[in-house]
């Protein structure tokens, strides 16, 4: 038995014009959680695709349990014991939990029909592994919350009894609490001898769950290290290739903040949130923390007029407003950067310039005509100001990296010169380098007088950026904290209250 369950040696993979992987090494021990980190484009995804048989490497070798392997398909990789849980869930929502776990491998009875009892019995065994006996295996997957859907996805991946499980950004749609539960599940699996390859942008998670880390940059292997021997600065420096001291920038002096710019008084929307009162001052960045489902996004969308509130008052610069549509909110100077840039924010097949112009066609027009000259000018300025790395303003945003896409969207919203900007998960799926730039743009926007309400599930981001923090819990404001003195524990305590409630479907 070799020391490593999985080894990749000197992997090279070239795409037309690009060397995606250039001599990457990876050594994974049995029963460990091994993190792979790097910026977008560093080669993490390509490496995973090579390991799971999606791509064949140009050169280099994959050694599984001492035997050299050459997978020609993902199915073959699974057969040899390498399973992957992708970022985008691959479940069939209209089928049951059990049928999803055993997709295409359902136990059958004598006449070849699916044996429901046996299927559900075996699914229950798997659910018990993560102490989720409360989920009925015949529940349809679409009726589960995202966290439990992901559990099903993981169970599906381990139901082939793999020796290596790859998790690609598993916490991207989970709350802090749900992430902790996921880590417990991962520990359960590694305790049974399974090796876990863990890919994440959230560096704090690496210190929580991984024992070893491999750092990639520009398709090259930088180093690997035992997590116990390193700190976050070491990770960031090696990922980015330069020293980044404080990605959140410097919090301004509270005395320099402006007058109250935006105020909510007992705002309510049935089924979403109730009696929400809060204040955001000019130049202030206010964090809105809480669990997924606490009503934060619903509150943001209500203020923006997308789903208007049912009662309560909204004041902007002392005047009462009640935007009934995003159009009226934008006219009032309110912007809303949505949490999901791909499905709700961007026009993926349109070029950068069309995306930047989408929310302010009227200010980029002369009379009834759209002015191409004004659009070009605004586009050039945005590409320069926000350092959007793009082949050109005419390229569709689908081809950009996550960080650059987010900069385009943020640029569009800063472009309306908002009095209040609501940003919902502003750095989700964005790598460290672009993240620190986005934080810089938000700080600069606030310094120019804009009030910023930042909804985020990333606690370190909330703590690092906010001048003040409101914490929401089941549709209410559970408390208010000062940005300078708040801690993870104080936010989590407010967000969760006493009970966790882990078995709600």
């Amino acid at each position: 038995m070799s020391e490593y369950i999985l080894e990749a040696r000197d992997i090279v993979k070239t795409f037309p014009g690009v060397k995606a992987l250039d001599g990457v090494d990876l050594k994974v021990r049995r029963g460990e959680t091994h993190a792979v980190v790097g910026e977008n484009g560093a080669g993490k995804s390509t490496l995973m695709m090579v390991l799971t048989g999606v791509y064949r490497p140009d050169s280099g070798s994959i050694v599984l349990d001492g035997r050299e392997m050459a997978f020609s398909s993902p199915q073959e990789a699974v057969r040899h014991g390498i399973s992957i849980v992708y970022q985008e869930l691959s479940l069939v929502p209209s089928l049951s939990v059990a049928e999803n776990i055993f997709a295409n491998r359902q136990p059958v009875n004598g006449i070849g029909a699916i044996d429901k009892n046996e299927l559900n019995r075996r699914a229950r065994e798997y659910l018990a592994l993560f102490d989720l006996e409360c989920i009925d295996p015949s529940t349809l997957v679409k009726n589960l919350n995202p966290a439990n859907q992901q559990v099903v996805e993981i169970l599906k991946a381990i139901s082939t009894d793999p020796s290596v499980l790859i998790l690609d950004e598993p916490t991207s749609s989970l709350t802090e609490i749900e992430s902790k539960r996921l880590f417990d599940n991962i520990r359960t699996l590694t305790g049974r001898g399974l090796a876990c390859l863990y890919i994440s942008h959230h560096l704090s998670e690496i210190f929580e769950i991984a024992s070893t880390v491999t750092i990639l940059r520009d398709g090259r292997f930088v180093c690997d290290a035992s997590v116990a021997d390193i700190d976050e600065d070491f990770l960031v420096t090696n990922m980015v290739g330069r020293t980044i001291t404080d990605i959140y920038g410097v919090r301004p002096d509270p005395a320099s903040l402006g007058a109250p710019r935006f105020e909510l008084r007992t705002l309510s929307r049935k089924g979403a949130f109730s009696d929400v009162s809060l204040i955001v001052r000019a130049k202030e960045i206010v964090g809105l923390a809480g669990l997924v489902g606490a009503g934060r996004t619903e509150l943001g969308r209500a203020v923006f007029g997308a789903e208007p509130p049912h009662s309560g008052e909204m004041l902007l610069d002392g005047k009462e407003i009640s935007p009934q549509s995003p159009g009226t909110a934008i006219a009032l100077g309110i912007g809303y950067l949505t949490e999901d840039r791909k499905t709700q924010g961007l026009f993926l097949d349109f070029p950068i310039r069309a995306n930047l112009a989408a929310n302010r066609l009227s200010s980029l027009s002369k009379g009834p005509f759209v002015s191409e000259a004004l659009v070009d000018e605004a586009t050039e300025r945005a590409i320069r100001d926000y350092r959007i790395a793009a082949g050109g303003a005419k390229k569709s945003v689908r081809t950009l990296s996550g960080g650059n896409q987010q900069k385009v969207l943020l640029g569009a919203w800063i472009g309306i010169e908002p009095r209040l900007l609501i940003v919902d998960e502003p750095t989700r799926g964005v790598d460290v380098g672009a993240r620190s730039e986005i934080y810089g743009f938000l700080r600069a926007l606030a310094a120019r007088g804009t009030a910023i309400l930042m909804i985020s599930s990333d606690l370190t981001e909330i703590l690092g950026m906010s001048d003040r923090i409101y914490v929401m819990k089941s549709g209410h404001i559970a408390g208010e904290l000062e940005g300078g003195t708040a801690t993870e524990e104080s936010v989590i305590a407010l967000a969760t209250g006493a009970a966790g409630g882990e078995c709600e479907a």
Partner: protein
Amino acid sequence: MNWFKRLTGQREFMIGCIVLGIMVVMSFASPYFLAWDNLLAVLLGLSIEAIVAVAMTNLMVSGGFDMSVGSIVAFVGATTALLLAKGVPTVPAVLIGLAIGALIGLFNGFIISKVGINPFVATLSSLSLFRGLTLIVSRGRNISGLPDSFAAIGQAMLFGVQTPIIIAAVLIIGGDIMLRRFRFFRQSYYIGGNERAARLSGIAVDRMKVLAYMLTGLFAGLAGIVMTARLGAASMTAGTGLELRVITAVIIGGASLQGGEGSVFGAFLGSLLMALITNALTLLGVDVYWQTFVIGATLLVAVLIDQLGKTSAQAKAAGAAKASAESGARKSA
């Protein structure tokens, strides 16, 4: 060279070249082809569907779809003719006809955007509803005996050109400029590109969608009036299959069923291409039964070329994105 690349990359350029190619070949193949009368006949033949295609382009750019235009053509033609036969003067009869077309569009738009019925299903039922109503009001007979003032809409000559061609030309040019340059109609592209993002960008999506169906109904109504005037009678079978020819023209011209792309000029070229192919086959003495087949093949080839172009562009873009991401990372390093 940049403008050259941009020009040649346009769908309109490709279709335009094919149209020119056919014209050049045909001018040698048939002495009748380039005759003024033949060219006018081609344009007159496509003018009705081109009028509908103007509004259909805006609708399909915004991600919509209307199967009922052929039935609207027939229904508006029949009701206008009935009004005229009952002695209603031409102007009010035409205005009422246009209003009926717009109202049918409003009905389509309402059940699609407010009730949330799929556009294909909703307008498929309208297709039968209004074809059926046409049969009911006309009792299965053609309605003729229309006043000369009405017939002039379809039969008068201006500068030696029939009015349907003039009406179509004005609407095509006006429509193309509107969709290309007007802020108001640019919103259609955003809605077709990503409806949810358009809503969150402050675009009044539902209102625009209802309006797009209304415009389509209005233009189909106008087409029905022009057609009735030209024929001098309302036929209960008028516009049968028109919806498919219009949608085919719009797609050949660069639109897709997903929305977000397409142009009025392109749709006109698509329509012209189909009409020229039909005309060429007739002049060359090819069996008429082949015409429909050739139009199907044209559509297939147009979308295949488009798809191949997209896939290779996407492959290139994917490589470039990786390269730019990496070079970006390197620059910052």
